């Protein structure tokens, strides 16, 4: 193997690729877990659609929209909700949800301590991880932005996002955040599909009916909302951005190694060309070496990324969201990216190597 001639250089190149792929595996994997938790959040409650204004970060939907929604024949139930990221202590911030006390979304929660909150009372329920982080139990009091709340229950939710969240009566959160009658979204459960109606048709017809009844608002399917909401999109783009920078550094390492390798082997390439090897065969040889570097670096990075995910799964702050396993699809993506990086980075050196004149190359010392 030509790459074994310069073992240190090859090892450093592999490290560069491995770091890039490990960053991709860990960060993008974590972002995917995050997205999966969002989906669980909707699926566990059986929400089909979320009715929002422009984006889900805007708490700007008028609370009166609920009546119009419930009047639609496709809608089985529609509950308002507010989602707000709040500082609960100087060290701990968390998602705080505001919901009516009779919201169907509270039904899947398992109450570990205490009870559910009552409507229009300064009460709050804490997810089990948040309660542990705050050191609070049912019966304790909790001050949120200057207002005193009684912790009435600790719950376990279907999604890790709930485990680190607090839930309080909708009206309390509206007052606390000075939102008036505005809500972030209405979560909608639809009636079952009519005979002969597909699931897709059920969703699409309901969306059309809702958007016609409430001009200016959007009805977004739960899966789309989990995939496209701004927090997930931000996590995803941050993960990809960071990974791409690391991958770029890895690619530059391969490009440098392959350029040096071609330079050092100019005479050998001349021999191959003199013995009748066509340009494409020389190019293929160099590209295969570059792809091999990418693949080995990718495998090392996969192991490193898996290790990083294991660590994230052990840290309390990220344990609920992080997964210590890597899906086959994600692993294949990582290896494909690693090989592609090798091929792209190796292309220019390969092209230059293939274009060498045999005579010039043989003359090279």
């Amino acid at each position, binding site marked *: 193997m030509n790459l074994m001639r310069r073992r240190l250089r090859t090892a450093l190149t592999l490290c560069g690729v491995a770091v890039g792929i490990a960053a991709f595996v860990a960060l993008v994997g974590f972002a995917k877990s995050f997205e999966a938790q969002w989906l669980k959040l909707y699926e566990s409650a059986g929400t089909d659609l979320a009715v929002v204004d422009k984006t889900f970060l805007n708490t700007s939907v008028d609370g009166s929209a609920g009546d119009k929604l419930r009047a639609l024949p496709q809608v089985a139930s529609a509950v308002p909700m507010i989602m707000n990221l709040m500082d609960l202590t100087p060290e701990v911030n968390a998602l705080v949800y505001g919901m009516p006390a009779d919201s169907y979304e509270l039904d899947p929660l398992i109450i570990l301590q205490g009870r559910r909150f009552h409507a229009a009372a300064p009460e709050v329920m804490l997810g089990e991880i948040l309660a542990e982080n705050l050191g609070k139990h049912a019966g304790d009091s909790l001050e949120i932005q200057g207002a005193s709340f009684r912790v009435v229950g600790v719950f376990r939710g279907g999604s890790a996002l709930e485990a680190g969240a607090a839930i309080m009566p909708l009206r309390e959160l509206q007052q606390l955040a000075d939102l008036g009658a505005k809500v972030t979204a209405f979560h909608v459960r639809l009636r079952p599909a009519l005979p002969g109606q597909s699931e897709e048709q059920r969703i699409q017809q309901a969306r059309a009916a809702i958007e016609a009844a409430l001009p200016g608002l959007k009805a977004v399917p739960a899966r789309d909302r989990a995939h496209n909401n701004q927090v997930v999109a931000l996590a995803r783009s941050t993960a990809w951005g960071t990974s791409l920078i690391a991958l770029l550094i890895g690619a530059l390492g391969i490009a440098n190694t392959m350029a040096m390798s071609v330079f050092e082997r100019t005479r050998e390439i001349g021999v191959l*060309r003199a013995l*009748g090897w066509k340009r494409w065969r020389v190019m293929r040889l160099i590209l295969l070496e570059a792809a091999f570097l990418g693949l080995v670096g990718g495998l090392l990075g996969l192991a490193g990324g898996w290790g990083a995910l294991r660590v994230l799964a052990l840290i309390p702050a990220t344990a609920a969201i992080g997964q210590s396993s890597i899906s086959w699809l994600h692993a294949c993506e990582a290896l494909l990216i690693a090989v592609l990086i090798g091929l792209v980075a190796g292309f220019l050196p390969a092209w230059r190597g293939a274009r060498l004149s045999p005579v010039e190359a043989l003359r090279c010392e």
Partner: protein
Amino acid sequence: MSECLLETRAVTKSFDDGRIQALRGVDLQVQAGEFVAISGPSGSGKSTLLQLLGGLDVPTSGEVLFQGVSLSNGFDLDAYRSRQVGFVFQSFHLLPTLRVLANVQIPMFETSLTARQREDKAAALLQEMGLGGRLRQLPNELSAGERQRVAIARSLANDPRILLADEPTGNLDSENSAMIMDLLTGIQTRHNMTLIVITHDPDIARSAQRDIRIRDGRIWSP
């Protein structure tokens, strides 16, 4: 009457934007099965002529013809070098990271032989060169004479019609030189190959059927 296998017509070759004239109108005919030596002082243009005959380079003007067909204007020089020509270089040019058996197989990658066929053929050629016990060695584990024998085996890999040897004994002692020349002439005779050898050695030049002398880029008759 034997076939004219290789021919040059008024071939010139210049380098460095014409400041160096390596060949100045060379006309040459080489017959099939002939053993030709090309001799001359250093810088006379003999290696340049060999490169043009072998399709490693193209003339600045004039033509090189193989079996009457010009090697310029779209001629597939890669295929020509792969199928019709075997090269033996002064400094062997073996690939240092490949074992002897793999080195001999290099030209065969441009053929339709299977991996097994390539390996068998390479082993047979090395056996013929007396290197049957060295198949798994790396080039740096061989003597200079053995390396040149590997290079000769490699040059025969695709059963070429022409064997071009550029100072094949230039890096060898007299004993190995004699052995290599015996090998080359033996191959030329057995396979009725055309052998063209560039040499400084008057004994080798004399042993050829024809000694073409070059001086200042021209064929010179003393």
